[in-house]
């Protein structure tokens, strides 16, 4: 079995970028340069490229083709694209290496969320016959899930505010974070609802950004990185597209778990939770608390998606951040999670570890 490791990661600061196009090149060129410098690789060393982005977000057709300019794709490269978060592009890249078609692969994701009405654009990922014609916005849909959990006694609005405060505090010192700082729970709870029961702090900020992760197989990984983050499991699961036919709280509780059970104990977990209650739901689903099979893990030491959620890059950035925790020695085992679709419909988990 081919062994594959993350050997490089870079992300652009998450900001409202008035100078960046929806084609992504202005955000991608600097982070490609950064990850090449860190690994010593050049573009000719990359055997497979895969990107994640969205034409709906960009407001133009084939926007990912413009991003290919950031690569410098002459002579021709082996390249693919997913209309999903870059985390799923990373999955495709991993499969490419596992199947022996490449030794080194680069996955990237980018999104300029601020150029669009993000909450409305995301309505177009819903059932096109029965739901999307009503234009349910992404925050309102997440709020339906949040209230279910509140009324089931799984969390409170105060628990949700505590997630926001902890993430913002953790993001202090993270140059990629869009929001950070120390906030008082009672101040957060005094603010108005955006979509009752969600307040602004319960929702990830709208921002623009890009992320890149490099994978390498066995011997190449050891050459490129002192402490590669070896992938021990990598999988994704999709819930029904029908919001009313799926138990929005059982997301994960039983079904999100690894096909072989718990992911096992991890030191760091970077969860892609664009809403505060979703972090609580994911912690339970993955068993990351004290006494749980996966815990106790340090959750989102980067501040997570609640402090910067560039669409189509934020999930890849979670995996990259978890890998970085292994590569820097902060963690021996780390878990990266990415989500896509409404109310945690799709979930992807990548567990990585250091080896002697």
């Amino acid at each position, binding site marked *: 079995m081919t062994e594959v490791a993350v050997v490089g990661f870079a992300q652009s600061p998450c900001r409202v970028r*008035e*100078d*960046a*196009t*929806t*084609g992504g*090149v*202005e955000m991608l*060129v600097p982070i*490609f340069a950064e990850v090449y410098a860190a690994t010593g690789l050049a*573009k000719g060393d990359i055997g497979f490229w895969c990107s994640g982005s969205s034409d*709906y977000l960009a*407001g133009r057709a084939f926007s990912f083709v*413009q991003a290919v*300019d*950031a*690569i*410098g*794709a*002459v002579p021709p490269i082996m390249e693919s694209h997913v209309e999903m978060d870059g985390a799923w592009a990373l999955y495709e890249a991993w499969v490419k290496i596992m199947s022996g078609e490449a030794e080194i692969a680069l996955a990237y994701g980018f999104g*300029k969320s*601020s*150029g*669009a*009405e993000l*909450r*409305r654009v995301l*309505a*177009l990922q819903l059932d*096109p*016959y*029965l*739901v*999307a*014609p*009503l*234009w*349910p*916005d992404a925050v*309102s*849909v997440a*709020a*339906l899930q*949040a*209230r*279910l959990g509140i*009324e089931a006694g799984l969390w409170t609005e105060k628990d949700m505010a505590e997630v926001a405060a902890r993430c913002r505090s953790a993001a202090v010192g993270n140059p990629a974070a869009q929001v950070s700082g120390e906030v008082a729970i009672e101040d957060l709870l005094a603010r*108005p*609802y*955006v*979509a*009752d*029961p*969600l307040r602004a702090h319960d929702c990830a900020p709208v921002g623009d950004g890009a992320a890149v992760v490099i994978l390498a197989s066995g011997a190449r990984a050891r050459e490129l990185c002192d402490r590669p983050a070896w992938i021990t499991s990598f999988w994704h699961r999709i819930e*029904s597209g*029908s*919001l*009313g*036919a799926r138990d*929005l709280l059982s997301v994960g509780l039983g079904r999100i778990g690894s096909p072989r059970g718990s992911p096992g104990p991890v030191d760091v977990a970077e969860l892609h939770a664009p809403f505060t209650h979703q972090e609580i739901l994911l912690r339970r689903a993955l068993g990351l608390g004290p006494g749980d099979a996966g815990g106790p893990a340090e959750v989102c030491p980067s501040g997570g998606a609640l402090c910067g959620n560039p669409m189509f890059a934020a999930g890849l950035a979670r995996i990259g951040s978890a890998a970085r925790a292994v590569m820097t020695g902060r963690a021996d085992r780390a878990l990266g999670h990415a989500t896509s679709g409404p109310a945690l419909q799709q979930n992807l988990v990548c567990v990585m570890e250091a080896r002697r």
Partner: protein
Amino acid sequence: MNCNTFYNERVTDTPLTAPMEIAFDYTRSLGPVLGQFMTALRERRVLGARSADGTVHSPPFEYDPVTSLPPRELVAVGPAGTVLTWSWLAEPLPGQPLDRPFGWALIRLDGAETAMLHAVDAGSADAMRTGMRVRPRWAADRVGSIRDIACFEPCGKAPGVSETAELSESSEVPEVPEVPLAGADAAPVTMTVTPVRLRYQHTASPGESTYLRGLADGRLIGQRCPVCGKVYIPSRGTCPVDGVPADIAVELPDTGTVTTFSIVNVAYPGQQVTPPYVAAAVLLDGADIAFQHLILGCEPGEVRIGLRVRAVWRPRDEWDTTASAISHFTPTGEPDAPYETVARFL
């Protein structure tokens, strides 16, 4: 061909931005299950799908998510139902069912075991609660769409009464009497049209901005790659060969050579020129990439690879930061460019 460089400058201006609205209709065929569901909505009835194990889903599934089987039968449900969870939106967005504050809810219609997402016109968040009873408010004009249900409203409120009406669990009004099937002889609904309207704030790249500002001055400005020296117009922002910003501005003349072309004989909506006309790839003198424009001022049959052409600018007071500053290209009358000069751009 030598680059015909008039000046070089680094791009420093801020990028141009402009609002952009994209609007289009999705027209979709419904298939047998959703076709019946939408036909029933037009007649103010709601259907659910009964699965092999007897579970009723509304809205109906086309194929059972567990067994993959089609519905055993479609059955009437509701139309009243119970709110399973809700959120309250103080500031509705364009396109949503109501333009005043309203609730979103997952509503389990009576007789169904799954829920429908829809809007609830309850007046205020204080009037919303999980477990509340609601019923559809039908749209006046029904076409066979999920929007034939204008929204749901709390039971206990007489139809059409203002939002502030007092609600009471015990004051449910009887079901809306059975309506004669609106045009029982009307054809079944087989298609649905969903209008999509999205707004963006579009940002041009720094190089595109320089190009567009040049057009407003009657000039053609491309960008040169600092690594390979190739000149791109309009700018690509980043050299696709080297992956570095092509940010050295280069002014080019408004003359060039046709590298390839097609004769447009087909009319289409929004067409600006009456067919037949020629759309061509024009390689400006000094550029390393051709760009597409119209060739007018000669018979379409006279256009050929190697034809020398010049830009025809619109009147000066129409110049702006838009590609339409140049109306079209027209033959210069010079001898054709030798094949070798355009061969590598074909």
